[in-house]
């Protein structure tokens, strides 16, 4: 595959992010190209969800540039940002379904808000997406009546109902059994192939990452360790990546005195 001819969809350069005084991300640079599945991997607390929030424009970075479809989102006003977001779908970790609406109404909402289609057409389009996620029989259930896996799939249905160019998926497999999470992985691959989407997945699940990814970015403690395709990641000699691949806790050498001080501090 000749990758150089493909368009860059998301271009992150030198991103630094803070929560208060705490630096969460330092100098992240990332290019995501058309029609690829980019998996952002890292432990819990590594900053991967923060990276996602910044790319979505939910948080603004302290410094750095984030371009989506050639638009610099760090300086966009919120109307322009909303215009851009119509081309983006986001599936949140817990689905983030509106609890006052049933499943079908939840999925219909973006169409009601952004299109002038009539009610029947909207209903058909929403049902198509629910069928695709295998939720066709549950459309009249409320979010509180759904299981975790169903909520994730419902969130995915709502994220793709506008047929976005870019799809973000936060932790598709967190908290799911292996079979359900494998089904979600298949769904993600299908979406990329059938709907020509560029997909960014944030996960800490090795297995699912290696199943779906075209390229993988590994983040640890807010620093980007490497970005590459599956083989490059597997062949990496960085100890942190080797640890991650072998599911081994990092063996940091600790000074005995420091450790004692840490335990006895006030």
């Amino acid at each position, binding site marked *: 595959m000749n990758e150089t001819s493909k368009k860059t969809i998301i271009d992150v350069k030198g991103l630094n992010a803070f929560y208060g005084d705490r630096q969460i991300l330092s100098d992240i640079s990332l290019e995501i190209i058309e029609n690829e599945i980019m998996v952002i991997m890292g432990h819990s607390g590594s900053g991967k969800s923060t990276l996602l929030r910044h790319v979505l424009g*939910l948080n603004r970075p302290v410094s750095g540039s984030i371009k989506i479809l050639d638009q610099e989102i760090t300086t966009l006003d919120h109307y322009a940002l909303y*215009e851009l*977001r119509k081309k*983006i779908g*986001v599936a949140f970790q817990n689905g*983030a379904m*509106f609890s006052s609406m049933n499943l079908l109404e939840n999925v219909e909402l973006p169409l009601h808000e952004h299109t002038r289609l009539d009610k029947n057409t909207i209903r058909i389009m929403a049902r198509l997406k629910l069928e695709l996620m295998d939720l066709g029989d549950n459309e009249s259930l409320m979010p509180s009546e759904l299981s975790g896996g169903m909520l994730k799939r419902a969130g995915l249905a*709502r994220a793709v109902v506008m047929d976005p160019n870019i799809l973000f998926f936060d932790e598709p497999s967190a908290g799911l059994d292996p079979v359900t999470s494998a089904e979600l992985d298949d769904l993600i691959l299908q979406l990329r192939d059938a709907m020509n989407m560029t997909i960014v997945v944030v996960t800490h699940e090795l297995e699912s990452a290696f199943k779906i990814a075209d390229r993988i970015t590994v983040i640890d403690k807010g620093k980007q360790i490497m970005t590459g395709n599956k083989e490059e990641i597997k062949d990496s000699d960085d100890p942190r990546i080797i640890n991650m691949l072998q599911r081994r806790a990092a063996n940091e050498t600790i000074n005995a005195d420091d450790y004692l001080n840490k335990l006895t501090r006030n």
Partner: protein
Amino acid sequence: MDTAKTLFLSTIDYQIKRLGLSGIFLYRTFYQIFTPPYLLEPLLKQLAFIGARSLLVIVVAGLFVGMVIALQFYDTLVRFGSVSLLGSAVGLSLIRELGPVLTALMIIGRAGSAMCAEIGIMRVDNQIDALECMAIDPYRYLFSPRILAGVISVPLLTAIFIVVGIFGGYFVGVILFGVSPGSYFQNMSDTVLNRDIIMGFSKSLVFGLLIVWIACDKGFNMHLDRRGIYGSEGVSRITTEAVVLSSIAILFSDYLLSALIL
């Protein structure tokens, strides 16, 4: 001493910034209220929530408040031998003070707290982020119908409260204590001026705005709380804060408006 001073200054600094945020919140909500497209369905939903479903509480509260002030005024007026003034005493106190203030306090307990908790949970559960990511402006979709519904329904509920209260007073004064029905109403219509009604009405308008504004702003901006309390504990805390703050804001602005209009 020095740490106390910096703590004090940082608190002032934080509160001013927080006030600014609330101001921006109100500005953006109003901007959305006056820009098309107008959302009718969410507005009706909120009118039903704040207005229609508070009706029973308001009627019951209005009845008892009217009854108790008639009882108290009767007891006082008897000592001065001016029982015929009962109608105007009940009418004036309900229309000018008790009606707007007590209705507002009831609505805070019934709708304001629920609204604050709902928005707070939407924030914790990422539902507000999801709205933003779907390019749906939360100010338009969540808050403009709520503010509008508050401004419409609180004055109407206040009017109902006052009317029911006047009849509660009638029941105690006329039926129980035998004040003549003619003098009860005649006296009331003689003493209650347009200015009194305007005062009651403008108070209830401001209260309706304050209740919804404080409840929604507290919920929406809960993630910016400097104590960094989030999750279910955060929701319970901001809900309490919203109830306390809006009650105080109601009583404070009640004095302010009375002083301004009188």
